[in-house]
């Protein structure tokens, strides 16, 4: 054989061998239960993530003081086996079970919860969801670090270096004392001092520690303009002992709230507030501690491995206190992004649960004959809406906004661009047991024209050209085009549409560079407040420029109101104002579109569309509808059909 040919052959064999080796590495026995988690998750650190895919995994790996049930998401005992609430609704005392263990076998104690809560609130942790814990007394001030302290407060100063006996990635050594003064650098202009982003750059903090005054600058270096003797520190915050979250003993945790919060237990079951293992974090450091070989968790499952963009495998945690109550031994969470691929995998039996299907496929499933035994859409706690920029003309006039809302035909939108979604006339979606959301008026073109004429634009004459802004996605585009046509047809006004890529879209929202903009909101917890809180004057997610003192007062006082009925009535009154003033225009409520195989039990539709996996079991011999198909829907979901030809204009 000529050497060249031999060389080529050797190369070929080596290449094929490589391919086979790589593929072999990917081979796995199938898990008991496989579902598609929609994307590669951002992190396994509960404190820093915000997405649903992350939540699905973290809910299984970790367990908080309470956990939320699979059916109606009611708080159930988690690490805390029982709790008491004080009469004023402010103090909760949690009694931890003695048999709760980390996956390395060590006990879960109250100290773990205090460590985790402090870390969660620490602005250096970069927890986007930190505000979910601000119902705790002084928690917000702790999160605001140096901007949250006042002279006379007990403070803690985190130095740059950890103490000598600390683990390699521990936080800096902490000194505690009383803040006795804040000195601003001489000769710095007032607007520089007021700039929140530069707050710490021009200030020296004087702290009295054990009767001795010490000066601190926040940052790695002390600048030359600082007074002599100032020491650098990483951070200065309120003393965590001032925050309403403490360990009374090893197995008792007490939380003290700013105001009675009826959904506090639900929030404690929300995954960002899960406890993390201090030893694990401080031994391996950021980015490394969440790797499979290092991670220590306390939930029903532990992390067996994680392959980027492929799957996460969970295995039952042998140290979990309720291990006998968990039916599944292994779970695979796939990271398949394409909804079509996800559906293909489901249909070929490789996946047992997919969290959504495209509207196109959903339409087919609604009409399938015989009816599907694995598709049962239900209402979800989210609203798709348009926001008006009331700082711009003509949207500063409520009559114009009302006219635009009255001229909207939601039926046409949900029949054309959606599959099963429900037309929305309130901001808070329906389905809460004790709250009937006040609605804005239904479509009424005559009234819309009258209002527009009253506002000075009879038949749309003189009405400036307005623009609808949306982020690029097929469905948003279809809806924007429909609304453009409806407004033009019904009011005779000139409307254009424009799309932006997600990043630019968000910055347009924040800087209020838009006329009318597509938005959506999914509730964080089952209470109208998660929606209504958005539109208080200058709220950080308001972004419409709208504000109303009466609305602000109702939202603020509802927070402090102890009587649940009075509180709900206050929130309803606030929503009535919102639906009268309409700085926003509700369009539709979201609908969940999961598909679950008939042999999966313990999976229930619920408003939050969250489904704990520890509750699942597989029974391939059982007959009859499973919990998914037989559960009472929050709302009947049907496919809206277009009227036959002729009804259209």
């Amino acid at each position: 054989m000529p050497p060249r040919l031999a060389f080529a052959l050797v190369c070929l064999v080596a290449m094929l061998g490589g391919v086979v080796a790589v593929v072999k590495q990917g081979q796995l026995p199938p898990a008991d239960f496989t579902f598609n988690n929609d994307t590669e998750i951002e992190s396994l650190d509960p404190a820093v993530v915000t997405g649903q895919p992350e939540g699905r995994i973290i809910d299984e790996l970790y367990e908080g003081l309470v956990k939320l049930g699979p059916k109606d998401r009611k708080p159930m005992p988690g690490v805390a086996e029982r709790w008491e609430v004080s009469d004023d609704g402010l103090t909760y005392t949690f009694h931890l079970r003695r048999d709760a263990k980390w996956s390395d076998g060590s006990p879960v104690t109250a100290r773990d919860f205090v460590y985790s809560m402090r870390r969660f609130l620490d602005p250096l942790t970069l927890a986007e969801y930190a505000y979910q814990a601000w119902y705790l007394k002084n928690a917000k001030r702790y999160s605001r670090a140096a901007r949250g302290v006042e002279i006379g407060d007990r403070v803690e100063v985190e130095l740059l270096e950890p103490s000598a006996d600390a683990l390699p990635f521990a936080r800096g050594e902490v000194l505690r004392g009383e803040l006795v003064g804040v000195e601003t650098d001489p000769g710095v202009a007032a607007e520089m001092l007021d700039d929140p982003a530069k707050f710490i750059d021009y200030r020296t903090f004087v702290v009295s520690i054990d009767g001795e005054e010490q000066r601190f600058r926040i940052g790695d270096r002390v600048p030359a303009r600082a007074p002599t003797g100032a020491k650098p520190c990483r951070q200065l915050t309120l003393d965590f002992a001032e925050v309403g979250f403490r360990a009374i003993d090893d197995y008792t945790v007490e939380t003290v709230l700013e105001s009675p919060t009826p959904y506090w237990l639900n929030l404690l079951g929300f995954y960002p507030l899960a406890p993390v293992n201090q030893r694990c974090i401080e031994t391996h450091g950021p980015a490394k501690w969440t790797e499979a070989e290092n991670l220590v968790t306390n939930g029903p499952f532990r992390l067996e491995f994680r392959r980027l963009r492929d799957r996460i495998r969970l295995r039952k945690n042998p140290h979990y206190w309720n291990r006998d109550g968990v039916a599944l031994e292994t779970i695979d969470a796939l990271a398949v992004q394409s909804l079509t691929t996800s559906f293909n995998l489901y249909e070929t039996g490789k996946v047992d649960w997919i969290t959504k299907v495209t509207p196109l496929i959903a339409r087919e499933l609604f009409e399938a004959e015989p009816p599907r035994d694995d598709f049962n859409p239900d209402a979800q706690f989210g609203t798709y809406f348009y926001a008006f920029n009331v700082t711009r003309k003509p949207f500063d006039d409520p009559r114009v906004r009302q006219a635009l809302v009255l001229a909207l035909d939601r039926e046409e939108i949900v029949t054309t661009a959606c599959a099963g979604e429900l037309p929305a006339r309130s901001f808070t979606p329906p389905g809460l047991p004790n709250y009937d959301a006040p609605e804005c008026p239904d479509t009424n073109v005559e009234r819309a024209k009258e209002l527009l004429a009253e506002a000075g634009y009879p038949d749309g004459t003189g009405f400036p050209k307005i623009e609808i802004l949306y982020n690029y996605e097929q469905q948003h585009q279809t809806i924007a085009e429909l609304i453009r046509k409806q407004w033009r047809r019904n009011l005779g006004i000139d409307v254009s549409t424009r799309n932006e890529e997600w990043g630019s879209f968000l910055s347009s929202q924040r800087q209020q560079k838009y006329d009318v903009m597509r938005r959506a909101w999914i509730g964080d917890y089952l209470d109208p407040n998660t929606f209504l809180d958005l539109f208080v004057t200058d709220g950080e997610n308001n972004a419409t420029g709208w504000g109303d003192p009466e609305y602000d007062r109702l939202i603020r006082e509802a927070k402090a109101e102890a009587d649940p009925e009075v509180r709900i009535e206050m929130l309803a009154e606030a929503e009535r104002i919102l639906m009268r003033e309409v700085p926003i225009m509700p369009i539709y409520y979201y609908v969940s579109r999961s598909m679950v195989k008939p042999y999966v039990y313990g999976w229930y539709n619920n408003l939050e569309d969250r489904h704990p996996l520890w509750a699942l079991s597989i029974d391939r011999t059982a007959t009859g509808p499973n919990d998914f198909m037989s559960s009472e829907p929050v709302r009947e979901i049907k496919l809206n059909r277009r009227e036959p030809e002729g009804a259209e204009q």
Partner: protein
Amino acid sequence: MISFILRRLGWMLITLWVVFTVSFFLMRAVPGGPYDSERALEPEIEANIKRQYNLDLPVHEQYWLRMKGMASGELGSSMKKDYTVNRLVREGLPVSAALGLLALAFAFSVGLVAGIVSAVFRGSVADVSLMSIATIGIALPNFVVAGFAIILFVFTLRWLPAAGWGSLDQLVLPALCLGAPYAAYVARISRTGMLDVLGQDFIRTARAKGASPFSVVVKHALPTALLPVVSFLGPAVAGILTGSPVIEQIFAIPGLGWHFVQSAIDKDYPIAMGLVLLYTTLLYSMNLIVDLLYGVLDPRVEWK
């Protein structure tokens, strides 16, 4: 030859530096940043994020810091996710490469045979039909091919799995769809190359001295006819090894291709930068290998 390689490697470093610089400034010229989200961030958290990723430093300092990192082979950590770029490449590149190699093997063998047959039987029915298929193969985007292939092989014939990674049968469809356009290109290029060579004097000489038609084509004509194919394969290998976002998406392959797209959408600067530089390195080395292969295939070529 050694000095040729060394010189080319020198140029590679310069190319990498230029690519790094251009990408660095292009990325920062785009509005928005990696931490845009629907909810506004608290100013403290935003300031801390910027500090952690050095986004609060002046641009020239960021540039210098990143360049030092890159030079030491540390591609950095993702800004959005909790893994490093090195881990992403370590896990994704073998997958993309395995798929790519299969696709290339398919493309090369099918394309080459089709090209040679077309050239040798120029003008015949075989030639016309093969070249028509090749033209269609080039024109059809691979997601269309993938769609048809899935309907046929997964749902109608039920021969192959729909998607996923971990067994050889899961690789067949993606390799086929990924390789199809390349096969079409190879067929067209090898046909042209072959026709070119078959008209040359040394082929006529070979025929005149009585070599069999098979030996004329395979032994004398093929090596020279391969030259254009090889120069096409260089960049093709670099492209195929770093993965195809579309095919990976459709067949749920955990390769590198998706990260190219997603990091740009997320404005995850370290991932985008790491992948661009990886691609540059691969492209450059493949071109270098192609240049070296020229010398092996064609005795008239000298490395200078």
